[in-house]
């Protein structure tokens, strides 16, 4: 019987000819990622070795990645001390893939791993972060685990007792309309599947829309699969991944690509027509509370957040900057932008996006997770409503249980920053065109049509008529 992507990866990693759903395997780990919670992993790791008489050494320091991103730079002495403890451990163990608080190579783990060439197709990747599902975008089986589980991986180099998960096949076809983005696809899907609809399962993405989508867009899809409860998301790797790895991640030796078997068994097949999709909003306080943007029309927001491991990449910043160029963030709205990595930050700086944001009144923050989970800057006041491109809107998520978080794409967030209320980005351009026509001469400094997604800067190509080659 044919195997899905993840079955094939698990069979390979467990040294078996094939595996079935429900089999229990112990796959070898290619990459084990942690962030600041590495402090807890170290504690549990040392505890494992207590009384064994054996030295507490990790199985392979070249396969461990530690990226500081949750609280950077440290917001408290407690965090600073945790980070120091991790630095000392990294030095002692010789852990190579370590990204400290730096402007040249720092950022959010789910961007650092792909852009540094650490993620490769066919790998087994585990991370002490639920959004480790992201790396399935590059064709790896990548999933979140807890700190004690990671301590065991550091000791053994494999994950114990993994039950081979079933797979849901999601097929996305059709061209995404203008200002409808990969984020809208995944929000729509989570709304359909519900927050527990993919629990213990893998979501495998197929269809022409996904094939034409850049790695950046695929990372958005896989990132949020966990919000439907999925163990992971995965996109069968193709030439776009080869392009990304070579051009953007500097990888020279790319492993042979493989996809699922043609007769692979899926537990469920979900089809999405991208051409009929509208911008989507996840209403508080669950990510599956998804409605088209029109249902949120007129909801006033006090904070706009663009960034995170979900939507803090260059194409997100490009589309937001294009919408905000020459505009102002509405008074009474705080707009925060935090690029997913310092590399993206530098690229956005060069392209002028950050200047656009600042001129519009947005605050550009350093790369990190902080505001998304309310641990570091950007906390909400009692009664505040925020619209964010992040991945969770749970009660208390942005630092205050008496506030509300709505989720959207970067385009919707940027459009809403201008009006101060949740706004369909398509309506903004329509009214702009009308105004310009009525005034006979352009009242906007931009060339007509420049609000369109820029073809030179934007890597995600799904919104354009010309698909990626």
């Amino acid at each position: 019987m044919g195997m899905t992507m993840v079955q094939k990866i698990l069979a390979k990693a467990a040294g078996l000819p094939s595996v079935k759903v429900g089999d229990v395997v112990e796959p070898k780990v290619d990459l084990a990622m942690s962030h600041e919670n590495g402090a807890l992993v170290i504690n549990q790791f040392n505890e494992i070795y207590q009384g064994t008489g054996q030295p507490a050494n990790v199985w392979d320091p070249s396969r461990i990645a530690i990226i500081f991103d949750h609280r950077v730079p440290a917001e408290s002495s407690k965090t600073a001390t945790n980070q120091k403890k991790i630095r000392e451990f990294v030095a002692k163990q010789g852990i190579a893939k370590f990204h400290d608080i730096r402007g040249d190579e720092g950022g959010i783990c789910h961007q650092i791993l792909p852009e540094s060439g650490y993620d490769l197709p066919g790998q087994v990747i585990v991370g002490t972060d639920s959004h480790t599902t992201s790396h399935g975008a590059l064709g790896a089986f990548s999933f979140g685990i807890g700190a004690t589980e990671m301590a065991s991986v550091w000791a053994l180099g494999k994950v114990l007792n993994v039950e081979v998960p079933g797979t849901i096949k999601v097929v996305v076809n059709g061209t995404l309309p203008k200002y409808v983005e990969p984020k809208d696809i995944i929000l729509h899907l989570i709304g359909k599947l519900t927050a527990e609809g993919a629990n213990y399962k893998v979501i495998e993405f197929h269809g022409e829309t996904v094939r034409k989508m850049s790695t950046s867009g695929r990372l958005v899809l896989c990132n949020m699969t966990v919000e439907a409860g999925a163990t992971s998301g995965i996109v069968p790797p193709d030439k776009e991944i080869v392009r990304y790895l070579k051009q953007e991640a500097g990888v020279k030796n790319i492993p042979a690509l493989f996809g699922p078997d043609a007769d692979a068994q899926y537990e469920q097949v979900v089809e999405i027509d991208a051409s009929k999709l509208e911008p989507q909003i996840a209403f508080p306080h669950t990510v599956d509370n998804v409605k088209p943007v029109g249902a949120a029309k007129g909801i006033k927001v006090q904070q706009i957040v663009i960034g995170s491991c979900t939507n803090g990449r260059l194409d997100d910043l490009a589309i937001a900057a294009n919408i905000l160029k020459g505009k102002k963030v509405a008074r009474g709205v705080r707009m925060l932008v935090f690029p997913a990595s310092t590399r993206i930050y530098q690229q956005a700086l060069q392209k002028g996006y950050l200047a656009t944001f600042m001129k519009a009144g947005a605050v550009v923050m350093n790369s990190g997770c902080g505001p998304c989970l309310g641990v570091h800057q950007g906390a909400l006041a009692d009664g505040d409503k925020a619209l964010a491109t992040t991945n969770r809107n749970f009660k208390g998520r942005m630092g205050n249980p008496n506030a509300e978080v709505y989720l959207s794409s970067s385009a919707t967030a940027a459009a809403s920053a201008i009006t101060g209320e949740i706004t369909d980005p398509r309506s903004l351009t329509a009214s702009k065109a009308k105004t310009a026509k009525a005034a006979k001469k352009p009242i906007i400094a931009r060339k007509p049509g420049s609000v369109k997604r820029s073809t030179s800067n934007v890597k995600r190509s799904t919104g354009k008529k010309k698909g990626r080659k």
Partner: protein
Amino acid sequence: MAKVALKLGDDISTDIIYPGRYMATVLPTETPQFAFVDDAEFNKKLKAKQVEPGSFIVAGKNFGCGSSREQAASCLTGWGLKVIAKNFARIFLQNSINVGLNMVICPNIEADEGDEIEIVNGKVKNITKGKEFDTVPLPKARQAIIDAGGLIPYTRKLITSGKK
């Protein structure tokens, strides 16, 4: 036999159990103080030791959804709480087994705060309501870890027995 100390609905996230802003606190000895900290009343009861160890939290579907933060499991273990839910989110379930949190999957559970609950032979008995509910066994793949008392002793045993 023990009482239901807290009754909750569906999709209780790790942000509700253990808010992100306390994530810099990592040690299982220190996390219990922040258990359900945004539910001021319940958190206060815990700290005042008005909740008997062994008491139950009863929840709906998808308990522990969201983050992989292990603090959400260890903060409950620290108070000796047990969780009965209709089902659990994957990472939370695994973390709970790894750190030895007592959990029961009971898809049809009916219980209110204050009800007396007993777990006998794989069934949840609500003594107050005079009803009995079937449970779903925890994943068999994880039974060896449960039997060993958690993942730390389990992995330690693998190392000392040379099975690494």
